[in-house]
Structure formats: structure tokens, C-alpha cells
């Protein structure tokens, strides 16, 4: 109901601006963006941050795409994979949107991409990090503006070895996302000559870590690499510190371990090192402008998810300018999207042949409750996409 209202409001506003627009062309209907994101449940904050970022980018560029007004159709994905195909069909066939933007959750992505394949709808993924989306599934009409699990984890393998660690224990939840993340780290770390002493898989979504911490203590590795997110990330880092392991065995992780969690981590988070494609403290003009613009518009600091939404918006602005707002010629539109190059808050960003971002991955350390950028862990990193030939 809420979404219906929002849609109705958006179309009323859209029409109003359209009518008042002087001498608008008769066929000048708005560009329809279908947002399939979680607006309820565990991932609500992510869905809202992405939406905020997306709207901010378009508003800052004059509120139009290729000279046409924009209509937003927001649909609550509920982060529910079983509803994904049906929801996606509603946007594509019912609302007849020009672009689908979503999802957050990788399970939902699988369902959406099935419909994207059948319908050919242009889909931009602003979060979900499953490798398959821009590798095995390989579709010309699918783009990603976020990351893949592998991309954020791989650079840490080299960093860990360079820091002098030789024997490492890896630990994550026993599910696809966690395993893809560990695989990225382990690939790089073993290529350098390091040894993975033990890979621990915790049943998802358990946050009862005591027995695993005891196991880690008995294995005495040089360091621990981990992927957990949300509440699991907070629990793991706090339990790790409370067990007194942080001093003797450094904790390394994927950026999602601490992303959005710094306040909840408190002292336990200090000194934890992670790799991610963004950090709020990045010292660039683009990032500072983005952070202050976002703060002004929404009264809160942006996070990685907001950047991903923002870049999705910037990508649309650039591509639709290139084709003068013509969404009818899909081939030209896809070509324009693939050619987008952004000076993003996260740094320079372009797209690989498989439509995945080529971007920097940063090494970050929590100091005084902030992710300080220690350095660039990997410059303009491309993900493996051997399975994708377009």
C-alpha cells in the first residue's frame, strides 16, 4: 500500500512537472526506474541507503535523465528470493519500467536474473555480490555497480602475506556468499605461498562463536581472516576481542565485517583491518562532495550502499545523456551503459566486458571509530569472468 501510494505520488508529481514544462514534446513521457529493493525486514537500511544515493545523484544532475523526467516505482523485495521472479515480472510487464534497479540480496538476484534473461529488461544490480551475476549467468542487459565477494576479498590475501602472516585460519558462515569471499582470499594468499591451516564454516546464521574461538586459540595461527556481516559481524569481532585473541592473533576481514557496525563494535573494533571498494574517509574531492551532499539531503552519513546507489544514478545520467534520452534503441542504450566511466566517490570506476565494475579496493583499519584508509590494496581490480563471452 505504502509503495502504491509512493508510486501514485511520484506519477502525480511527474505529470505535474511534465505539464508545467514549457512546450514539452508530446511523446516526452518520463523514464521509469523500477526499484526492487528491501523496504522491510533485515535489509531495510540497505534498501533505503541505495534509494537515497540513487535519487541524490539524479537530483544533483537536474532531476532528469537524457532530458526526460524520471518516475520512480518502488517495490519492496522483502529480500525474499521466492517472491523475486513474480516481483520482477510485475515491474517489467505490469509497470513497464525502462530499468530495473535491484536487488540487495544474492538469493533475490538469482530469481530476478531469470526474468531478466527471458524479458531482456535492463537490470542494474546495486549490491548483491554473487559471482555468477556477471560471470556464469552473463547477460548483455545486466550490469552491476557494486562488487563481488571475490573482488573485495582477493586483495586481502596479498596484504596478509606482505604483513608477514604465513599460517592463517579462515572462518565464515556456511553459505554461498561466505564461501565465495573466503575463496577469493585463499586464492590470493596461497598464490603468495601462505598456508590455510583450517577453513571453519559456521552454520548460517548462528552467532554462537565460543567453540570456534577456542578452536582458533588451539590452532595458534598467525592471523584470522573472516567474513561475517550485520549482527554476525558485530558478535564475532566482540567475542574475538573478549576471548583475548585480538592481541596475539590479528583479525583481518572483508569490509562487510565492520561496514555500518563501527559504533556497535566500540573498542573491540579498534585495529581490525578490512578490504573494501569504499571507505567513508577517502580523501578525494568527489568523496567529500558526496558525503556533504548526502549529509545535507538526508541528515545522516552515507555508507557503501549509498555510494552504490549514487553510482547507479550517475551511470544512468551519463548513459542517457549519451543516447539523448532514447530508451527505445536497446542496443545503443546497453552500449552507452557499458561505456560509462565514473569519477565516483569510491575512485575511478569503469565496466568490464562482463559489465562488472573495475575499481580500486582499499585497505582500511578502524582507528577512533572510523575506517581510516591505510592504502590501496588493489588498483583497478578486474574480476575473473572467463565464463562470460558476450
Amino acid at each position, binding site marked *: 500500500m505504502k509503495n502504491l501510494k509512493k508510486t501514485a505520488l511520484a506519477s502525480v508529481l511527474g505529470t505535474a512537472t511534465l505539464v508545467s514544462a514549457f512546450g514539452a514534446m508530446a511523446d516526452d513521457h518520463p523514464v521509469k526506474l523500477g526499484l526492487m529493493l528491501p523496504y522491510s525486514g533485515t535489509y531495510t537500511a540497505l534498501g533505503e541507503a541505495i534509494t537515497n544515493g540513487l535519487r541524490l545523484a539524479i537530483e544533483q544532475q537536474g532531476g532528469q535523465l537524457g532530458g526526460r523526467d524520471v518516475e520512480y516505482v518502488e517495490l519492496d523485495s522483502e529480500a525474499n528470493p521466492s517472491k523475486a521472479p513474480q516481483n520482477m515480472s510485475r515491474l517489467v510487464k505490469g509497470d513497464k519500467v525502462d530499468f530495473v534497479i535491484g536487488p540487495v540480496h544474492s538469493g533475490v538476484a538469482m530469481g530476478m536474473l531469470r526474468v531478466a534473461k527471458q524479458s531482456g529488461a535492463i537490470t542494474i544490480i546495486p549490491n548483491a555480490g554473487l559471482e555468477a551475476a556477471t560471470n556464469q549467468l552473463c547477460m548483455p542487459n545486466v550490469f552491476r555497480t557494486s562488487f563481488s565477494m571475490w573482488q573485495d576479498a582477493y586483495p586481502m590475501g596479498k596484504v596478509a602475506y606482505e604483513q608477514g602472516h604465513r599460517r592463517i585460519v579462515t572462518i565464515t558462515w556456511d553459505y554461498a556468499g561466505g564461501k565465495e569471499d573466503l575463496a577469493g582470499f585463499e586464492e590470493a594468499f596461497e598464490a603468495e605461498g601462505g598456508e590455510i591451516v583450517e577453513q571453519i564454516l*559456521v552454520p548460517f546464521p548462528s552467532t554462537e562463536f565460543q567453540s570456534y574461538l577456542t578452536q582458533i586459540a588451539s590452532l595458534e595461527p598467525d592471523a584470522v581472516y573472516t567474513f561475517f556481516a550485520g549482527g554476525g559481524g558485530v558478535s564475532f569481532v566482540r567475542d574475538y576481542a573478549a*576471548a583475548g585473541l585480538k592481541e596475539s592473533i590479528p583479525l583481518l576481514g572483508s569490509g562487510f565485517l565492520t561496514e555500518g557496525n563501527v559504533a*556497535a563494535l566500540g573498542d573491540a573494533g579498534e585495529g581490525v583491518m578490512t578490504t573494501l571498494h569504499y571507505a567513508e574517509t577517502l580523501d578525494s574531492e568527489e568523496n567529500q562532495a558526496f558525503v556533504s551532499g548526502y549529509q545535507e539531503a538526508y541528515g545522516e552519513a552515507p555508507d557503501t550502499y549509498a555510494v552504490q546507489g549514487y553510482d547507479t544514478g550517475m551511470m544512468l545520467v551519463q548513459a542517457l545523456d549519451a543516447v539523448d534520452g532514447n530508451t527505445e534503441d536497446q542496443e545503443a542504450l546497453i552500449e552507452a551503459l557499458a561505456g560509462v566511466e565514473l569519477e565516483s566517490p569510491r575512485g575511478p570506476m569503469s565496466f568490464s566486458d562482463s559489465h562488472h565494475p573495475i575499481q580500486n579496493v582499499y585497505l582500511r583499519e578502524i582507528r577512533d571509530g572510523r575506517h581510516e584508509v591505510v592504502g590501496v590494496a588493489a588498483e583497478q581490480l578486474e574480476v575473473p569472468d572467463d565464463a562470460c563471452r558476450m
Partner: protein
Amino acid sequence: MDLAFFGVQLLNGLQYGLLLFLIASGLTLIFGIMGIINLAHGAMYMIGAYLVWDLTLRLGNFWLAILIAIPVAVALGLIIERLFLDTLYKRDHLYQVLLTFGLILVLNEAQRIIWGGDVHSVPVPAPFDASLQLTDNLQYSVYRLFVMGVCLALAGVIYWVIRHTRLGIIIRAGAVNRDMVEGLGINVRTLFTLIFSVGVALTAFAGMIAAPLTSIAPGMGDSILITCFVVVVIGGIGSIKGAFWGAILIGMATTFGSVLIPSLASMVIYLIMAAVLLVKPRGLFA
């Protein structure tokens, strides 16, 4: 695994088991006496944790926060019982299941509206914010020992009330034959209100006391719910003694299962439940 680490794992298993008992006791109490399967049990655990987080932030004192949060939890139980459950006792079990399932959705959404979707934590309160050195590289939080003590003490109190007080006699009799108890002139309606409120308060209290050991996040009660049902089913539905030994068994199995047979870690508690039900279909102590 050498002896020292074996000892630490025993401690881990015991601590997890005791906490599980505290969380599951409210569920089994409500089911045993009232015959109601409270699916919103996990959501009430979550509400307890959020309440104590919110109040600790406002008042700056964890213990004061618990003191205030407990009556709030009792009131929540009271309201739910009188407003909703009270009208459904004469109906089929399915209506109650449907209601408590609906409560999960309502409580989860209320949590999101009131407290938002961020992850929070409660610092370990003084004077228990210290740790013991167990092995040369492993420490153990004193607060965990304190929680074990609280769980044991509460288990003792619940056992004493049920075994040695007039209320306990009524509760036990009510679990066996509700109509007869009513026939003897006991006001069952008041008894049900009391039991449900105490059950909710126990569950929420488990969330409060566990808050410094976990992260406060949306949906945190959903995963604990399944484990609680396993504990209650293994122990025998409605049996406090069963819930106690069931919880210790699951605590130990989870701890050792995850280290010794990691490939089966996610299944081990269900395998135990299946094995128990094969031998004793009504649970260990029913």
C-alpha cells in the same frame, strides 16, 4: 584437542546450554500449562534485548535498565494474553498458532519502527567487565560466568516454585487436567494470565541478560526460536526439568559437534532430536 582445550569446550557447552535453558524455559512453561505454542517466543527474546539496549543508553546503567525492562516485559505479556489469547482458548490450536505467528510479524515490524534496522551492542557491565586467563592465549569473560550463575539460580527458583509451593501444585495439576483444576474452584483465567506474563518475562529477561554477549539486530529472535523448540521437544514438552537437561545436551552437542564433526554442525541438534524421539517419542522427561 588437548586436555586444556577440552576443558574450555566443556565450559563453552555448559554456558551455552544454561543460556538456552533460560531462553527455552518460558516456552515450555507456557506450553505445559496453557497448551499454547508461542511462536512469538523468539520475538519476545529480541524485544528484551532491544529494551535493555535502549534503556542502558538512556540511563547509562545496565542493571537499572534490567530493573525497569522486566516490568515492561510482564506488562507486554499481560496485554497480549488479555487482549488476544483470552478470546481464543475455546478455539482450536490452529487459531493460537496463527495469532502468535502474526505476533512475530507485528513485533518485528514494531522493533523496526521504534528502534530501526541498525546493529547495536551493549557493553559488558561493571563489575563483570573483566576476563580470566584460561590458556596462554585464551581469555574468558567473567560476565559469561555470571550469566551461568544467574541461569542456574533461576533454574533452582523455578524448580522450587513448581515442586514446593501451592502455586506449583496448581501448575502441575493444571498441566495434567485443566478441567479438574477448574472444578476445584481455582480461577484458571487468572492463572493463565500469570503464567503467560511470567513466561514472556522469562524470555525477555533471557534477551536482556544475553544482550552484552551478543549483537542487538533485527530478526535476532528468529534463529533462537528453532533451537528453543528443539530443546523443548527433546526434554518433553511442558517439563522444566526436561528443558534444563535438553538445553545442556544441545549446548554440549552444538559446541563439540561444531569442532569434532564440522561437516554435520548444522544438523547435529536435529539428529539428536530425531534419535531421542525414536526412543522416547514424548521426550526425555514427559
